[in-house]
């Protein structure tokens, strides 16, 4: 009895030590470099501080009040929201259409997948630079050569067109990724379910909306989640394509945080903006997940 308890106690200790050895290295790094900065940011948001000098003053919610009354900041938020909406819709609609087209029997499906996915492997920064060249130089030259003068717009210099260009390039990069996931989701649907639906008279659009889409809900959930969270993180592309311009008309919230912190040396304001971004992402993501998770159907 006595020996038994001592043995099992050391065995429990050994098990706990094993658990720690496997789990804690990564957990420790994660807490240190992710969780701790998060809380640091929360504390900075209540300060007036340039981020460098030792003098800082506590100002409570003043930073939040100030940014929410700042028309420049509000237009940044509005730009980010519009960009997110357009990007998510465009990417998912096109990707789903392409996935449905590729799901049909036919030659070269893999080659098509490789081609559509290619824009995703280039960094967003480089993608922005590539399209800067296309939109500022190649396309205008082409427009004049072919006489298709409607192509010769100020794609990056006009605020509305610049928003459209940013959406277009972001979608260009995400469509392949999103399509591949939709394709996998489509291919996981049991063919017999689709066939029996067809026999019951459901064809085309009806089959798509009543049968295919509900059965694909898991991949829709994942894709919506990814495109939404990526849209709010718009930073690299924003830097290279428009740099937030003209003026600040295409400035994303993420780039704005960087500029406020490193450019304006305003750590308090930047941190407040960072918190607002987090709240926005959190809220939108949670709402989106609850909406789509509820609609997931088992075949």
């Amino acid at each position, binding site marked *: 009895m006595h020996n038994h308890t001592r043995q099992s106690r050391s065995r429990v200790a050994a098990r706990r030590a094993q*658990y720690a*050895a*496997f*789990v804690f*290295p*990564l957990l420790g*790094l*994660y807490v*240190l*470099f*992710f969780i*701790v*900065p998060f809380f*640091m*940011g929360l504390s900075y948001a209540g300060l007036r501080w340039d*981020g460098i000098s030792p003098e800082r003053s506590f100002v409570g919610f003043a930073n939040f009040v100030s940014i929410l009354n700042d028309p420049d900041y509000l237009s940044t938020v509005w730009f980010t929201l519009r960009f997110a909406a357009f990007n998510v819709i465009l990417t998912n609609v096109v990707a789903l259409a*392409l996935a449905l*087209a590729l799901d049909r*029997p*036919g030659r*070269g499906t893999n080659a*098509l997948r*490789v*081609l*559509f*996915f*290619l*824009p995703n*492997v*280039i*960094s*967003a*920064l*480089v993608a922005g*630079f590539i399209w800067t*060249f*296309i939109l500022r*130089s*190649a396309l205008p*030259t*082409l427009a004049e050569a072919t006489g298709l003068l409607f192509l010769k717009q100020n794609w990056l210099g006009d605020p509305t067109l610049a928003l459209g260009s940013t959406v277009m390039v972001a979608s*260009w990069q995400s469509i392949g990724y999103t399509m*591949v*996931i939709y394709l*996998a989701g489509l291919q996981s649907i049991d063919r017999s379910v689709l066939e029996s639906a067809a026999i019951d008279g459901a064809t085309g659009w009806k089959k798509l909306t009543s049968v295919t889409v509900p059965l694909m809900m*898991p991949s829709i959930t994942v*894709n919506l989640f990814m495109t939404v969270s990526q849209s*709010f*993180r718009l*930073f690299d592309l924003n*830097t290279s394509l428009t740099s937030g311009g003209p003026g600040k008309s295409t400035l994303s919230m*993420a780039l704005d*945080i*960087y500029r406020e912190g490193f450019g304006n040396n305003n750590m308090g304001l*930047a941190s407040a903006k*960072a*918190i607002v*971004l*987090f709240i926005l992402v*959190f809220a939108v993501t949670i709402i989106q997940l609850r909406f789509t998770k509820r609609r997931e159907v088992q075949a």
Partner: protein
Amino acid sequence: MTTTRRASLVGRILLFLLAILFVMPVAIVFMDSVKPLGAILRNPLGLPLKPSLRAYAYVIDSTGYFTAVANTLCIAVCSIVLVILFSSACAYKLSRSGGKLSWVILMLFTSSMLIPFQTIMLPLTKLTRALGIVDSIPGLILTMVPLYAPFCVFMYHGFVKTIPIELEEAATIDGSGPFGTFFRIVFPLLSPATGSIVVLNALWAWNDFSLPLVLLQSAANKTITLITFGFFSSYSMRWDYALACVSLASLPIVVFYLFMQRYIIKGVVDGAVKG
């Protein structure tokens, strides 16, 4: 019958045309990067008459390209090794142990997907400065690991469940310790997931911009994205140099992709399914 087959053939051809249009911007940039500036401005779609690597030589010279490649490769390899090591071990224990603590830790890792990087970006620079690891490649690698790992933990977590626990029990009976069992029995069986994680992490590490931007400063510590950014901003009107720079940054990763596309796309799908 024939009408349907012809319709689907037409459909395929249209899809291929669309796909080619899709990759055209990249192809045009690669093609134009060997043309002189005048030719780029006059005839961007035309084939190069006298392809020249002059612009490439200039970019390599003035950006320290090879140093940046070495740095980026080093960062990629080291972060991949560490991510695989830590996330597989962590996911393994979390998956096998179950229980409340493991669930809480998994939820904690989920927060990485809900908190945008920019929210922690500024405090992270303060922290790394305080720890003395700012502006160093090892410091960057160390910070990168916990940012890339959560996704990999989820991938491994689902995969571990598919490995029959009897194998580990047999190994334990044979006298194998916990680490031995993990490395000799479980980890080799995780190789499909590991393969996907390697290529995905390689992509992320090569293309990462915002993390090196805030953590690295000196000229010796530049990554590919940083030198591309620096160069392009100064040479935006010299398209010949700018396109060579962009090509130098993306050719390696495009070539990598063409060789590894099966694993990359598989990794994307697996990550989505398990996520």
